[in-house]
């Protein structure tokens, strides 16, 4: 009976996937949802087919990019694995990913599972399957409305891993992450950065984790990489960065990331310090799996930015960059990257407040928008769009952006058109999650049209030349 229920659930899930593909909707969670309803044990049954190991990647920022990079490395090595791509990181999305990789009997053997997991879903997932490793990238304020305060989220995960034989892979530079060792007693691996040329001596005003988690004393910092990530110690109880097993050094961020991790030389087409952390996290996991340096280097070098992770488009000879933003730290990092470009630019910002975006949009006030509205930053237009276009427009206004350069266009298509119509060399399309793929489709279409029309002009020129 159990077996029949499993097969029915798999078939229903696969059918729903198929249907949503035909209909052209994303369909990353509905198949899993249906299958779970039909057979609640589906996830633990399918997870039993993983012959090597299961890895969970959680934390606030960098889950998707880290998991994608590790997937690229495993692919390069030739392994078969389950991977929930495109940020579908709740139980339903993870179930969908397992259904996609299995056959209809639910028995196909698979080497690994790489599961990007929403922080609040970690306890639920751990009831269903037994990973070897849980990697925690960092903790920042993000979508607080879903789970209450950040401490709750951290405690949820801590309670879920306690008394297991899971190994933790932790960011050694984040004081909100490093204390997992003391409070869970689990075996921990650490990754972190040595001093870099991009470090600051002063911290941001509204950063998290200002106080020692053990004794409440304000932490002293020798330097900050960004936000609360850096070299810290507590003068009261001696809490400080643990020694890293995987240490990144000699970091260069522009034009593209270069660094050394232990003695492996890494080059990546990515930009931004936060992506350097993602690479470091992925490489650390790959080394724990025992993958050769050459394979890691090749996979990272060939891995191009994906949907909304500084993804590049060219529309009418203009450089357009799509960036997913979802919390102050990520937005600060995106703006800092935009600020490195000295030429005139246009910004488009789609702010939505659906559940997957976080219904509370207050976080835009914690971001340091002021860094980009300084008079010399060459911003020709700020187009505000999405369900909460007014809120983001206000944020820019109160960051002293020139009011006559702020435009409100609720509709994404007309907003993007507006941003592309102003004279600027570069256009940045910032978007929260639920508007991201719509924006991306609009950009892909515009890119295609601009290629086609360029071809037409080219052909016309050629034909007139041959006539002449």
């Amino acid at each position, binding site marked *: 009976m159990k077996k029949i229920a499993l097969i029915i659930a798999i078939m229903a899930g696969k059918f729903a996937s198929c249907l949503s593909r035909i209909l052209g909707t994303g369909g990353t969670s509905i198949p899993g949802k249906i299958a779970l309803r039909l057979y609640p044990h589906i996830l633990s049954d399918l997870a039993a087919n993983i012959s090597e190991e299961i890895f969970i990647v959680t934390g606030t920022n960098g889950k998707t990019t880290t998991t994608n990079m590790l997937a690229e490395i495993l692919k390069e090595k030739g392994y078969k694995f389950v991977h929930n791509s495109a940020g579908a990181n709740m139980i339903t999305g993870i179930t969908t990913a397992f259904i996609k990789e299995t056959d209809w009997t639910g028995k196909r053997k698979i080497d690994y599972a790489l599961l990007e997991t929403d922080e609040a879903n970690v306890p639920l997932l751990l009831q269903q399957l037994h990973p070897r490793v849980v990697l925690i990238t960092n903790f920042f*304020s993000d979508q*607080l*409305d879903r789970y*209450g*305060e950040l*401490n709750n989220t951290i405690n949820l995960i801590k309670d879920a891993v306690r008394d297991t034989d899971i190994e933790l892979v932790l960011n050694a530079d984040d004081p909100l992450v490093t204390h997992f060792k003391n409070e869970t007693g689990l075996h921990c691996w650490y990754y972190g950065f040595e001093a870099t040329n991009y470090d600051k001596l002063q911290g941001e*005003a*509204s950063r998290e984790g*200002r106080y020692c988690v053990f004794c*409440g004393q*304000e932490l002293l910092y020798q330097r900050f990489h960004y936000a609360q990530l850096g070299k810290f110690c507590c003068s009261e109880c001696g809490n400080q960065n643990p020694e890293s097993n995987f240490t990144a050094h000699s970091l260069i961020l522009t034009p593209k990331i270069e660094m050394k991790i232990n003695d492996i030389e890494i080059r990546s087409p990515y930009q931004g310090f936060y992506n350097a952390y993602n690479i470091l996290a992925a490489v650390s996991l790959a080394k724990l799996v025992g993958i050769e340096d050459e394979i890691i280097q090749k996979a990272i070098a060939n891995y191009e930015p994906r949907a909304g992770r500084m993804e590049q488009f060219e529309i009418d000879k203009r450089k357009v960059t799509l960036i997913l933003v979802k919390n102050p730290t990520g937005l600060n990092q995106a703006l800092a990257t935009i600020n490195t470009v000295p030429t005139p630019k246009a910004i488009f910002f789609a702010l939505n*407040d659906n559940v997957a975006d976080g*219904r*509370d*949009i*207050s*976080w*835009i*006030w*914690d971001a340091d928008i002021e860094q980009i509205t300084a008079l010399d930053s060459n911003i020709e237009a700020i187009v505000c769009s999405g*369900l*909460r*276009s*007014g*809120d983001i*427009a*206000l*944020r820019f*206004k*109160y*960051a*002293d952006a020139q*009011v006559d350069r*702020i435009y*409100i266009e*609720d509709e994404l298509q007309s907003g993007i058109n507006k941003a592309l119509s102003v004279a600027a060399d570069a256009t940045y399309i910032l978007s929260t999650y639920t508007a991201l793929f719509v924006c991306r489709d609009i950009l892909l279409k515009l890119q295609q049209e601009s290629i086609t029309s360029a071809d037409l002009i080219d052909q016309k020129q050629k034909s007139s030349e041959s006539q002449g």
Partner: protein
Amino acid sequence: MADFIIAHLYPELMNLYGDRGNIICLQKRLEWYGHDCYIEAIPRGSKIQFNQYDLIFMGGGADREQKLVVNELIHQSSELKLEIEQGLPALFICGAYQLLGKYYESSDGMQIPGLNVFDFYTRKEKNRLIGNIVIAASLRGQPFTVAGFENHSGRTYFENEELRALGKVISGFGNNGQDGQEGLWYKNLIATYMHGPLLPKNPILADFLIETMMNRKGLIFKGGLDDHIENYSHEQTKKRILG
């Protein structure tokens, strides 16, 4: 010296959810009205001369931070009460609102004493009251709406019938999810569960605080800022809630 000084109480402890948006808003609007405004961050361990400031502001914080703040301020609560009584403009958000009351009862029944400035208490419950909220308020007989976002596990109950709420809930939870009241408005003090950027998209409230700040200095408030983005945002939020 700056024309106006705002005391931002314990920003390192009480800084949840974009609360600093309110400070930015007051400072910028004062600037646009032609006055400079200095924000003084008050750290732990300071003796506060409340009467040196034109407005005091405190944002929300988690339980641990809230306890630390009570310990800081408890010795000065009578001075704070006196200044509020004399019309000091003030804005207290979420956790800061709760500690103006008699006590705060955690879910395991433990009572954390408050500053006892007003006759109300707060009881924590397990499920949080989260979501967009819109309330009906009035100023000098003129009705207006306030739109924002709330996220709190505490339920606040007034014990004194003379306490006046900031407004009546149109959609959302408010003080306790039961009696339809939201926040507290006493003289020039506003306390509310609407966290984060309350003032930017509710310019009537921002200007009420600014006007009282100016009047207390003998200045006349003329108003007249172009608030079309503010109003757009207010209406958009309202529509998002009320459909």
